């Protein structure tokens, strides 16, 4: 650019009381929809039919309660993953010595604030399911006596996995993951806030070292989290690609969430120092990682399809034509909205530099990957009794609103642009 760009970087987000009110209303609506959905499922005809039908064939088929456990689990995993990806994004930018992203750094940083909330919710849902959901356990390996020889539930394959899939170790890992992520997030956040006050380069370098360490921690913990929280639902089944697959899904959703929040802030007059070049870069990120997700999805599919081993194909048979083709449409819809749509819509330079286009694509990606997680979790837990109705809508709205509440609250607690970030000047001059 020709002329030196002078913009104010002193911005503080203040939430209007109307916005806060709307969030509260959204949360109430979400919970209400969920409750009404549950009541319908309990006393309405549909839920009973499905439950009875499956009970007839299996004896102890999953009831409509399973649908509730599963949808709670799905949303908790989905939104917590997004918030962890906010932290991961910040760390990647530090390690890459990236300058351009410093102007929007506070948004992914604020997303990390949901890690402890989501983590607590996940632990609570897991424990509640373990203690209350006797016939509706989310995880096959939690069933009573499944690892005890001589028990009528005994399953030798699952018993062989007892070293990894046992309650103390599982719960310990889960809490350790959230603890580690939260610890790193609070460190990075406190460095960032101290940098705002005192300036200098020391906090940048401290954050850089911590980020490098965290990326290694994260590379090990996310696949494990994916095995634990999602893959172990189908306890017999395994895929070495699964960890990366879940990571890719979380990551592209996280990037879309960052972009969507930036679009909303920009439209409301904030982030004046952020220009279309930054959005272009975020758009490229989403474009690239939509393709990356598809690459991982397809690599997992192709290996299983080609090898044709029954213990592996069962996962895709459930989704392609199992349960009377219940998930067939969703499987192809998943590929369309998470690959074909962002691929074609974000291909041109102009599309990535238009807020309205970015808004449409980010929302599509976020919804698309919500369905991606739906597809990962539902067939294994509910055995085809899952549905898309008020329960799912209400849960998604409630979790989404809670996420927005925590993130916007965190955004208001610091300046919207880190004024003393050593690379901020580079970010303001960013031109591609």
């Amino acid at each position, binding site marked *: 650019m020709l002329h030196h760009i002078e913009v104010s970087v002193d911005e503080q987000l203040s939430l209007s009381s109307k916005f806060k009110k709307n969030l509260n209303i959204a949360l109430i609506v979400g919970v209400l929809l969920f409750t009404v959905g549950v009541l319908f499922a309990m006393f309405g005809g549909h839920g009973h039919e499905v439950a009875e039908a499956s009970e007839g064939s299996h004896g102890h088929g999953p009831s409509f309660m399973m649908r509730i456990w599963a949808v709670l689990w799905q949303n908790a995993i989905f939104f917590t993953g997004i918030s962890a990806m906010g932290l991961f994004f910040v760390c990647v930018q530090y390690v890459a010595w990236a300058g351009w992203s410093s102007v929007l750094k506070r948004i992914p940083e604020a997303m990390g604030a949901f890690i402890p909330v989501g983590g607590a919710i996940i632990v609570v849902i897991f424990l509640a399911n373990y203690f209350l959901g006797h016939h509706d356990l989310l995880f096959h390996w939690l069933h009573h006596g499944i690892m005890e020889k001589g028990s009528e539930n005994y399953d030798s394959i699952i018993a062989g996995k007892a070293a990894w899939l046992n309650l103390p170790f599982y719960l310990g890992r889960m809490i350790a993951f959230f603890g580690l992520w939260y610890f790193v997030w609070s460190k990075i956040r406190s460095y960032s806030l101290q940098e705002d006050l005192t300036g200098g380069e020391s906090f940048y370098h401290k954050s850089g070292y911590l980020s490098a360490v965290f990326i290694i921690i994260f590379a090990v913990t996310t696949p494990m989290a994916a095995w634990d929280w999602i893959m172990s639902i189908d306890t017999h089944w395994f895929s070495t690609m699964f960890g990366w697959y879940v990571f890719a899904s979380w990551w592209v959703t996280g990037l879309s969430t960052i972009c969507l929040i930036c679009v909303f802030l920009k439209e409301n007059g904030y982030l004046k120092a952020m220009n279309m070049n930054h959005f272009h870069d975020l758009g490229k990120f989403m474009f690239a990682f939509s393709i990356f997700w598809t690459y991982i999805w397809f690599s997992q599919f192709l290996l299983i*399809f080609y090898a044709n081993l029954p213990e592996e194909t069962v996962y895709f048979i459930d989704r392609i034509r199992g349960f009377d083709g219940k998930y067939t449409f969703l499987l192809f819809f998943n590929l369309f909205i998470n690959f074909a749509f962002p691929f074609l819509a974000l291909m041109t*330079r102009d599309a990535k530099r238009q807020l309205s286009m970015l808004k449409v694509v980010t929302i599509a990606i976020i919804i698309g990957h919500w369905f991606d997680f739906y597809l990962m979790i539902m067939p294994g837990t509910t055995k085809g009794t899952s549905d898309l109705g008020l329960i799912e809508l209400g849960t998604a709205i409630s979790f989404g609103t809670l996420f927005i509440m925590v993130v916007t609250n965190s955004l208001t607690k610091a300046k919207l642009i880190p004024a003393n970030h050593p690379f901020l000047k580079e970010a303001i001059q960013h031109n591609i």
Partner: protein
Amino acid sequence: MSVSKHFILGVFDDEDVLMHGVHDIRNLGVKIQEVFTPYPIHGLDENLGYKRSRLPMAAFLFGLTGCTLALSMMISMNGIDWPMNVGGKPNASIPNFIPITFEGTVLFAAFGMVGTFFVSSGLAPWSKPVIFDKRSTDDKFIVAIDLSKNKLSKDELSQILMSHGATEVNEKEL
């Protein structure tokens, strides 16, 4: 060449002076033919008012060609011309073909794009590139102005170039 072209070359020492110079010279209504720099300068294309390259469109079309060719080749060979049972899969089994389709797309897009770029920027093997001033590969920035495309005289143009920071002004006839 049948018709000789007459160029005025302004030699600049500094990137910043060049950027402002190019901007101001164009504002005076002077048409600049080309600027030669030792390294890419961000925003110079914008300053020169260049239109966006259509290379991405070429890349897309080449990619589409590669995609179609690879898919139709495999379907016609394995599905129609010489059906074979491999692992009990259908003869024309699309999932099996995806990796090669992807490779074909990338190969065609990459080679097609490089080839298009070389030809359209005059770097084809048979072309003789015009070097206005050898120092533009070292440390000087050269602004080339085509005399026939400007109404101003030679002296006026050199005056403008000098007043906007050029350290010397040369002429070149092709």
